[in-house]
């Protein structure tokens, strides 16, 4: 925390260009998932990859891409991803040290796939491991076993990828503190370079939300707070540095692509439901597979909407500043203590947060000391601005 190298890494990401490629296909939709996904539509895979390729080919070149993220969905279920990366490289160019991440499910992984993807230019794999507790995996609707996680991580390592990450979800009602500690322990044995730990969140419109509304137990925020602290202690002890609310990495293995988002940097976006950010405008593609395919195939833009981050009225202040701080504060290194951040610290809400030990000024930056209260800080910051 607060390490000088981390501040450098984090700030550099502001100037990087990212690219997001969405692959929505899943075997089944997990009960907690609210991403743009489809299940049972595998017959459309090749048509879809063609459409994304066409979208890439039709996009305006804005410079070399520094970090690519192929997310989903479950991209690892699909073959032909090499073509996508190739199209991107051809149209936009990849920086020599570009990070190219693939989201993967452990049960799909084979050594053959590892070889193929490494050759195609992928440098990093992020596994949706979620837990090492079979009961938790079942609750989350996951179809892999703990051993499959280990095997997949091993395979990635052997193939010479630069980085491997695993995602974990904690705080489900079927989990105990002990089970969470065991999951963390097993995860550390696999020795990934990067670990993301997410508190299970009941998102609107998901199967989980329907169950909870119907009376099924909901995750308890206080219990989750405790688990969060457990993870913090165990992972930091093992040499993983927390660089964002939910993300830990061995120094130098921070996810560059995600750092761009938190630095309010720019990124291209391709595929159904993909979001991008260019020239002060945030935009998104249609979230429905058929609508996306139809648009691209008819040669029209699959864009579903966009909004400018700048406000038209200078009297209202700059929404760009507000967004920059709100995103930046998610990082353990916080934001530069400029006029905006200083004014917040001097506001009555800011003073209360300082007194409660939630935020502080450190080495010219405003940082959050209690990441569990990040939204409290951010909403106070926004309230102090209006």
């Amino acid at each position: 925390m607060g390490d000088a190298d981390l501040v450098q890494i984090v700030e550099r990401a502001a100037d990087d260009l990212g690219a997001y490629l969405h692959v929505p296909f899943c075997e089944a939709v997990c009960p907690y998932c609210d991403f743009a996904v489809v299940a049972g539509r595998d017959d459309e895979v090749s048509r879809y990859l063609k459409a994304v390729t066409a979208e890439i080919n039709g996009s305006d070149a804005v410079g070399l891409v520094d970090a690519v993220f192929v997310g989903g969905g479950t991209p690892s279920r699909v073959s032909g991803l090499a073509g996508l990366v190739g199209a991107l490289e051809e149209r936009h160019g990849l920086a020599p040290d570009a990070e190219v991440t693939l989201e993967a499910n452990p049960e799909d992984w084979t050594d053959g796939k590892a070889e193929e993807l490494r050759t195609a230019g992928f440098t990093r794999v992020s596994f949706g491991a979620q837990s090492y507790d079979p009961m938790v995996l079942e609750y989350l609707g996951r179809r892999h076993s703990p051993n499959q996680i280990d095997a997949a991580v091993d395979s990635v390592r052997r193939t010479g990828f630069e980085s491997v990450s695993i995602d974990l979800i904690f705080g489900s009602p079927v989990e105990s503190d002990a089970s969470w500690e065991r999951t963390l322990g097993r995860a550390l044995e696999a020795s990934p370079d990067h670990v993301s730990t997410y508190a299970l969140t009941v998102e609107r419109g998901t199967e989980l939300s329907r169950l909870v509304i119907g009376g099924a137990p909901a995750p308890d925020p206080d219990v989750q707070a405790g688990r969060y602290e457990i993870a913090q202690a165990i992972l930091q002890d093992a040499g993983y540095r927390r660089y964002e609310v939910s993300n830990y990495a061995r120094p130098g293995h921070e996810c560059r692509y995600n750092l761009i988002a938190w630095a309010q940097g720019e990124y291209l976006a391709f595929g159904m439901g993909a979001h991008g950010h260019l020239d002060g405008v945030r935009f998104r593609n249609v979230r429905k597979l058929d609508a996306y395919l139809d648009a691209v195939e008819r040669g029209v833009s699959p864009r579903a909407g966009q909004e400018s981050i700048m406000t038209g009225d200078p009297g209202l202040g700059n929404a760009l500043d507000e967004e920059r701080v709100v995103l930046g504060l998610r990082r353990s290194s916080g934001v530069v203590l400029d006029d905006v951040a200083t004014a917040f610290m001097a506001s009555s809400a800011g003073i209360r947060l300082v007194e409660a030990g939630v935020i502080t000024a450190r080495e010219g930056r405003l940082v959050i000391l209690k990441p569990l209260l990040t939204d409290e800080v951010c909403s106070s910051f926004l309230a102090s601005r209006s």
Partner: protein
Amino acid sequence: MISHIRNFSIIAHIDHGKSTLADRLLERTGAISERDMKEQLLDSMDLERERGITIKAQAVRLSYDAPDGQQYELNIIDTPGHVDFTYEVSRSLDAVEGALLVVDASQGVEAQTLANTYMAIEAGLEIIPVMNKIDLPAAEPERVAKEIAGVLGGSSDEVIAISAKTGEGMDELLEAIVTRLPPPEGLEADPLRALIFDSYFDTYRGVVCYIRIKDGVLSKGDRVRFMATNNVENADEVGILTPAAVPVASLGPGESGYIITGIKEIDRVRVGDTVTRVDHPATTALPGYKEPKPMVYSGLFPTVGDDFERLRDALEKLRLNDSALQYEPETSTALGFGFRCGFLGLLHMEIVRERLEREFDLDLVATAPSVAYRAFTTAGATIEVRSPQDLPAANQLDHIDEPFVKVMIISPSEYVGTIMELAQSKRGEMGELTYLSPERVEIDYELPLGEVVFDFFDALKSRTRGYASLDYEPSEYRTSNLVRVDVLLNNQPVDAFSAIVHKDRAYNYGNTMTRRLRELIPRQLFDVPIQAAIGGRIIARETVKAKRKDVTAKCYGGDISRKRKLLEKQKEGKKRMKMVGSVEVPQEAFVSALQIDQDG
């Protein structure tokens, strides 16, 4: 000719058809054509028409051609129908010689009607019992006639059965008014004494006073003196109400009408005052003027702080027509700037609040109603306590007296048990229990007014399924074992939640408030103790545990717009918070916590 004048009031319970009857009388005597009639003409305020109650007195003169060939002048002086407006009622009754007691043939006598009837009898008025709504299928004319006769001590044959709706029985009623009610007395030669029985503020003309001439003559242009305030004014206009205002040259003994003097401030005119002539003055005023005295107090605060000035303007405007409304600025740490308002009673309070919100488009928070206590200090001083904040510290307090009221409840006899239980739980002392008929009973109680205004009326209504009616009048102050319960948020007292309650109820109040607040106050950055205390002694405690987790787990490139929307929403919530010490409290929490519930 004074012998051909009849002045009377109509006494009726809400919904028993007073206004319909008045309308029918107006129509029968040709005062207004049916076409011009708005439903229920006498109730002129929207709120009055909507609630079917009369708040302000009204006066109407009718011309009646009797079957005997004579023409009579009938003056109806309408009275408010609610206990809160007893003072207005008594002034109206002083202006007449008789009263029609109107009772719904399907309902029977109600407490308020009875209270007003007793007032009328005490004022020496001749009462004509009228049973209305005999056309209803549910009417029980025989039973109700017996009940009325029982109350008045006459025979049920004297009860006139009518249907104001169909017009049935109206001829008999008009005849009874002429034959049974006495004409007024008074001499033209005597010095002028005119009773002001109501007044209202007209934007263009200033204060308009409704008057009844007892003695002497009032003419346009006379110099007149208002005896209580000692104002001398010019009688710019004198007139009668038909019900439209019609100027006349003069008004003589027994007549009612209005006077306009150009006074612009309602405070300079007091209902109950006597008007006399400067050139031929009366030496003694008519009895009757009394300063209206608020019985119930409550703080009114705008939910939006910026509305304070608007609230002040609105109260000023309301007061122009409602001299009983009192208010003074009050500051609350929790609710900001507002006004401590004094009301005649709960209905008055409710009406004022509703008018403020409706006619002036204000959003208000009202603190729990309180009554005027008398605190006696060890130093020998007496302090009137209208707000819990006025109460001296416990160590300086010798004792507290609280106002008691004489409560009259009329109810179907099957509810006697539950009413007694309720009254006892509110420290009631039972008086007489009288069967008005085998099915209906009158129970008298002495009750602390504080209990009555708190929730007694609601509890009575719910326990008797709305069948019981209630009336009360001030009785006396009695020493009671009262304490102030303070509610402390993070060790700081929150004035809006303090209450003066009987010692036996203190624990319950403290518990209820702390529990309620624990639910309403969001978790903060630190543990927030919520305590109820009597002086330094804590009687209840709850804790709002510190907020541990408030963070979005995932926020990546695709989540940014959504995340911003969530934070904006959270920000709006923050902006609605009020700081109480270091605790953020949502405005709605104050409103909800102050809502009296029946089990409270």
